[in-house]
């Protein structure tokens, strides 16, 4: 499936804005992305398996925070980091 990468994470993806990933759930997808781009998952998910506070994930048009949510190969995934602060 296609995964959109926010600019703060593109240092892990060789500056690619879109990458391909596999998995049946959001968690599996993030683990696959971490295999391809080591270190990236820990920037999105903390050590307790929770999405970091300002990280957001969309499956197509639906925002999800439950990493066990199912994804399908035809889904388009967007990882977004809310840029707040100064």
């Amino acid at each position, binding site marked *: 499936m296609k995964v959109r990468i926010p600019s703060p*994470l593109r240092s892990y993806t060789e500056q690619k804005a879109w990458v391909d990933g596999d998995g049946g759930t959001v968690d599996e997808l993030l683990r696959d992305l971490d295999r391809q781009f080591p270190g990236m998952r820990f*920037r999105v998910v*903390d050590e*307790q398996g929770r999405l970091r506070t300002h990280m957001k994930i969309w499956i197509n048009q639906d925002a999800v925070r439950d990493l066990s949510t199912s994804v399908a190969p035809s889904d388009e995934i967007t990882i977004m980091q809310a840029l707040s*602060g100064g």
Partner: protein
Amino acid sequence: MLLIGTRKGAWLLTPDANRTSWTPTGPIFLGQIIQHVVMDPRDNRTLLTASRTGHLGPTVFRSRDLGSTWEEASSPPAFAASDPLERTVQSVVWLSPGHADQPGVWYAGATPQCLFRSDDGGDSWAPVTGFNDHPMWQTWANYPEDQTPDGSMLHSVIVDPRDPDHLYIGLSGGGVFESTDGGKDWAPLNAGSVADFFPDPNPEFGQDPHTMRLHPLRPDRLYQQNHCGIYRMERPEGRWERIVDNMPRYVGDIGFPIELHPRDPDTAWVFPMDGTDVWPRTSPDGKPAVFVTHDAGSSWIRQDKGLPSTAWYTVKRQAMTTDVHDPVGVYFGTTSGEVWASTDEGESWRPIVEHLPEIYSVEYAAPE
């Protein structure tokens, strides 16, 4: 060389032979929060950063070529996924190299007040469970209630130069703790240190050390700049003595950093701040000054020649350092992005860099 950590990245400042002109290299990791940059004194070449990448969480970056190239730790400081308190590292704030006889060993202090160790030069990190999972940790750290303005943190990780298993740490808040078995067990070391914000101002723990230093030439002596005063301890007695009597009353003895002379255990520098009212943490009366003692705290001398007559900046706990030259250079960085230098042991000051982001740390390094 000075290693500068800021709220928006890191800079390296390289001096000429006279320490007159300083050439900046940077920004490194522009936009990322760099709490600490430290060189490995065992190879004088490796640099580590304690970082928090905006909203992307904590990490450590490492350079093995004096900052030309960097790589992220493959396993940054983190709690176990099975952590019963479900803790997450919010920030890596402090880095200390391990003992000279333990190349590759590093310690990292974090928010919340926990300790991590690397045995491979900073690439992979593991919790020091003897402290982080100590039966008293939650009480010592007042977790999760304790929240200082930038987050409660573990800092001032000190390794006794005579014994790699003898460790000191500071918790802000929580107090000073000591291990004599390499971190397997810990005990509070706060006798004599005041916590005047508590109903009992002399608790066993709960104090707020801001910075603690051990003199390498006299490793039985510790200095501490605390939320409640400046202290010195002579081991093995283990009692903090408040050393403030000759500080002017209008200045007080509140501050963040304390730095030592590399060859004289009786000489130390502090940068007092305003700890009155709502704790503005700026210089008292807006008049920046360093104070130095040459007699282990019995008396203090104001050193402000060259500093602005009025300024409202703060010098944070890791933002002051000394070099090893003769005379000793003393340096501090400000929250307004200036680095000030004295190459005559504090007698006179001049800015060597201006207009950086808010400075979190200044460390001296002597690369080979």
